[in-house]
Structure formats: structure tokens, C-alpha cells
């Protein structure tokens, strides 16, 4: 990481820390959701962008994380922070197990299988035998956590929403660091090698099936942690908020944010949080029509997403006369 990137990251973090004191409570909540979405998108991007496995059902893992947090808090009485790692671990396992049959499926077929998972999930959550835990159609209501006591001792009185924002920010920073280190390391290289040329990757001694199912698990873990955070932030889980459109929203987020790009997750999260708000004022159905048009537009014209556009713009701006432009990697051609 060069000096300029580091300065940029520090600036963004400072800005993120100042944000809750500068905006209204409602905006603060929206930015908390942006952070949560960015973790979920990061998870999907690890799977789809870096490993080339298409998932149209990641809303399922988001839902598992959310339900796990809700059930642990309301029925087992666990504190909210303890549910995050547990939801992550559960989704890691669930993702790994779903990844095993998914190994035999490629491209369109994997998309199909995960699409089926996404469509049938709300029905599974409503199942009456599970109602004791899931609350059936009504879902579960969660109480909002308070800021810890020691903060007020430090003269830092945060209200609940502000505290939740900082808590989410801390988790998000941790997850982004984790993703960066993972993707730059041996496993990350193996993931990308499998995406680009599975046969060559196997010849290099990579255990394809292990890495692929592991990637599925890790990706599900990220998305599950995001789901748990969302349950705490929204204070409510119900089957119908995890329909297929949630999974499609995630797909839209990574395509528009930028495939195979870590900062792309953040751009995508900003997009899926704020663009529908703006479009909502036109008509109830408009956000999806606009999402769809954006998807088509990006696929045809800007397949590297916002992250690619920013990178390209930066290269163009700072290019010297005899300097070779650095290459922008693409998944979509």
C-alpha cells in the first residue's frame, strides 16, 4: 500500500468518525446501514468478484445471520456484541456446507441453484415447526442496545444510534482489514487463480474444491455478520424482508460498486442505500426500474463499476507522458 492510499484511508476514517455528530439521527441510521451493506457486499464480492462463483441467494446468509442474532439476544439473553461472532461462525458453517454441492455447478447453474435458495427462503423462515424460535410471519422484535457506561465517564455521551454507528464502523473496519489480508495472501491468490483458469490452478497444486467451498463459507460469514448487525440496527427481523430482491440488491451493489474490488463494496453500499431514496420520490416502483437500467448501463459501458471508473480516472489524471497506464482488471469484458 503506498503512502497516498494510506492518507486517503485515514482521511475517510476521520470523516466517518466525525459523521454522526454532523448529521441528523435519521441520516446517522442510514449511514449505519451503508456500513452494514458494505460488509455484506464485501462478502459477496469475495465469492463472485474474486472467486468467480455467481450467487443470487446471498440474502439467505444475511437472513441466517440476522435471525441468529435476534434469537440469541431475545431468547438466550446474550449481549448484542456476542451474537456477531456467533452469527459469523454459523454462517461460515452454513456457507461451507452449501458450497459443497455447489462445487459441481458452474456459472449459470450455480446462479440457478442459489436463485432457488433466495426465492424459497422466506417460506422456510415462516415454517410453523420453527415458529417457536423464528416467530413465524410476525418475526422478532429486538431491543436497541445502549452505549456502554464507561463512555459517559469519559464525557463522551453518545445516544443509542450514535453508539451503534461506531460499533458498526469498528466491525466494518475489522472486516475490511480481514478481507484485504485474506485476498493479498496465499488463499486470495488461489481464489483468483481458480477464477481465471481452474485447470492451470489445479496444475499449480491448488486444491480447487477445498478453496471453493472455503470461499463460499468465508463469503457467507461476511454476509452473515452484516445480517446480524442489521438485525440489531433495524431492531426487527421478519421473513418477508429477506426475499429474492434482497439478494438481487446485493448483486446490484457489487456490479455497480466494482467487481473484484475491496473499496467497490463501499461504493456499492452507498449506491444501494441512497439511490432508491432519491428514486422513491418519483414513484413506488421506480427504484427497481432505475436499478435495472443502471445494471444494464454498467454491464455494457462500465463493467468495472464505480471502483474501476475511479481507478481509471486517477490513472488518467496522474499519468505522465511516458508513463504506462496501470492495468485495470476486469471480470466482465
Amino acid at each position, binding site marked *: 500500500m503506498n503512502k497516498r492510499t494510506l492518507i486517503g484511508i485515514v482521511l475517510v476514517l476521520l470523516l466517518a468518525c466525525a459523521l454522526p455528530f454532523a448529521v441528523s439521527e435519521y441520516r446517522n441510521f442510514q449511514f449505519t446501514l451503508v456500513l452494514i451493506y458494505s460488509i455484506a457486499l464485501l462478502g459477496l464480492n469475495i465469492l*463472485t468478484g474474486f472467486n*468467480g462463483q*455467481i450467487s*443470487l441467494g446471498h440474502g439467505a446468509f444475511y437472513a441466517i445471520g440476522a435471525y441468529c442474532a435476534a434469537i440469541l439476544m431475545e431468547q438466550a439473553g446474550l449481549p448484542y456484541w456476542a451474537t456477531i461472532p456467533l452469527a459469523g461462525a454459523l454462517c461460515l458453517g452454513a456457507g461451507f456446507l452449501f458450497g459443497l*454441492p455447489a462445487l*459441481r*455447478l*458452474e*456459472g*449459470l*447453474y450455480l*446462479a*440457478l*441453484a442459489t*436463485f*432457488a*435458495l433466495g*426465492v*424459497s427462503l422466506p*417460506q*422456510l423462515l*415462516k*415454517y*410453523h415447526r420453527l415458529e417457536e424460535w423464528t416467530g413465524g410471519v410476525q418475526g422478532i422484535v429486538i431491543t436497541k442496545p445502549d452505549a456502554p457506561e464507561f463512555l459517559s465517564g469519559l464525557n463522551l455521551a453518545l445516544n443509542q444510534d450514535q453508539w451503534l454507528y461506531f460499533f458498526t464502523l469498528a466491525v466494518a473496519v475489522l472486516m475490511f482489514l480481514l478481507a484485504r489480508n485474506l485476498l493479498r495472501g496465499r488463499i486470495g491468490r488461489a481464489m483468483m487463480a481458480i477464477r481465471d483458469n481452474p*485447470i492451470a490452478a489445479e496444475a499449480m497444486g491448488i486444491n480447487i474444491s477445498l478453496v471453493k467451498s472455503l470461499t463460499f463459507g468465508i463469503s457467507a460469514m461476511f454476509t452473515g455478520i452484516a445480517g446480524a448487525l442489521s438485525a440489531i440496527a433495524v431492531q426487527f427481523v421478519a421473513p418477508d424482508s429477506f426475499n*429474492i*430482491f434482497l439478494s*438481487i440488491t446485493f*448483486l*446490484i451493489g457489487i*456490479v455497480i460498486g466494482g*467487481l473484484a474490488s475491496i473499496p467497490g463494496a463501499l461504493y456499492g453500499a452507498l449506491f444501494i442505500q441512497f439511490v432508491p431514496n432519491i428514486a422513491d420520490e418519483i*414513484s*413506488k*416502483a*421506480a*427504484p*427497481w*426500474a432505475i*436499478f*435495472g*437500467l443502471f*445494471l*444494464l448501463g454498467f*454491464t*455494457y459501458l462500465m*463493467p468495472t463499476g464505480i471502483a474501476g471508473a475511479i481507478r481509471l480516472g486517477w490513472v488518467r489524471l496522474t499519468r505522465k507522458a511516458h508513463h504506462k497506464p496501470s492495468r485495470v482488471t476486469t*471480470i*466482465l*469484458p
Partner: protein
Amino acid sequence: MDQFIHQVLAGLATGGIYASVALALVMIYQATHLVNFAQGELAMFSTYIAWALINAGLPYWGAFFLTVGFSFVLGVVIERVIIRPVENFPALAVVVVFIALLVILNSVTGWIYSFTIKSFPSPFPEQTLFGNKYMSSHEIGAIGVTLVLLLLLYAFFRYTPLGLAMRAAAQNPESSRLVGIRVGWMLALGWGLAAAIGSVAGMMVAPIVFLDPNMMGGVLLYAFAAALLGGIDSPGGAVFGGFLVGVLENVLGAFVIGNELKLAVALVLIIGVLTVRPSGFFGKVHVTRV
């Protein structure tokens, strides 16, 4: 026992509708090797057109055939304008385009016709046929329509020069081009046919599930399961799969797992077929060369 017979026959009726959508999926798969995620929404949109035509005062069958014609044109236009540019892109780009199409059709329909549930007329008489106590006449009619559709398609592909050209274009595009078949247009025709078949399915299912922009979600899933079960490249297999899935769904829903988990049947079928026997019952087994 009566109950069981009733469930099986009702399953055959909905199975006919799944079979039609599965047939549409297979049409597009055969022509382009793509699985069309927007097939359900396309059919839903066509059904709304039919609804608008009927409300404008057209007789049912007039609206029916106008809608089929309109859907055919719509399918051709979508292939030419939207799918063409991504034809040779990797799977991810294609899936993204299909998903974009799905959400656009869904929300535009909601925008134009509102999201409130509407009833859709059936062309078949109210009272049951031949005084039987098992099936409503709409159910019998839906099965009949599916079978007629299948027969027409079979005749088209088997006995007409255009059908032969389309089969050739799907099987071996390079050689077909050399003998003067316009392969690009054959693919567009395939899309048009698929959209037309889908519209028939939409109009047959709408009296049962009622008309709303999300009505095809479940149907599409069952159709996927049906197409995979029969073999994604086999039209006859798709029809067989459709009827089988319809019966399985109804019987399992009524006697084994309850109505709440019906969609899970599709999920299990899809994942099961894909992992155990990806070519389905009648599909060709594909071998990839390293």
C-alpha cells in the same frame, strides 16, 4: 383415495403450466445456451397486456392471440436489443443482464398497472366438464392447451423448413451459416417463440394464482426444476418434468410436508438434480474437454 386422485389431477393441471414455462426456458437454452431468469416476468408482463386488452372490451380469444403475437415481437426485440450485445460475454454478465431485465419488467408492470391483485378470467366454463368431481374445467383446459402447444411446436420443428433451420442454427452455428441460415435471426426467433409460449402459460396460470407483478416467482422456480429434471436441452423432457413437478408439488404439499414448504420442494429438486444427475432424465450428457 378420492383426495389423492384429486391432488394428482390438480397437480397435472398446474404441471401443465410449469411445463409451458419450462418449454420456454428450454427453447432459449437450446438456441443460446443461456438460462433465462426473466422468463417468468416476461410471461407476467404479457398476461397484463392480455388483461388490459380484455378490459378494453376484446373477446377472450381475440385478446389471447393478440397477446401471443405481441409477446413474440417483444421476445424478438429483447433478443435483438438487450441480449445480443452480451451474447459472448462470460456467465456473470449474462446473469446480470437477465436479472436487470427481471427487475425492470417487474417494476414497470407495477408502475403501469399498480401492485394490487387483480382477477383474470378463464376462457373455460364455470361448471365442471362431464360432471366429474375431480377437476375444474379450467384445469382440464390448461392441460389441453399445454398439449396443443406441444403438438404445434413438435410439428413446427419437425416438418417446417424454418423449424429445421432453427434446429440447425442451435446445433451447429458455423455450418449453418455456411449453408446460408441467418443464425442471429434464428436465435431471435427462438426468443420470440419462448416469449409467446410463456405468455400462454401466464394466461393459463393467472385465473388460479390471480394477477399481480410477483405471481410468476414460484412458477419460474418450479419451471426451472421441471426443465432440469427433464434435461435442460430436451423439450419433451421439459414437458414431462413439468407434469412430474406439478404432481410432486401437490401430493407432497397435501400429504407429507404441508403447503408451507412447497417452494422448498423446488429448491431440493433443483439442487438434487444438479448434483446427482445434471443432464436430467432425457438431456444429453456433456463432457468438457480439457
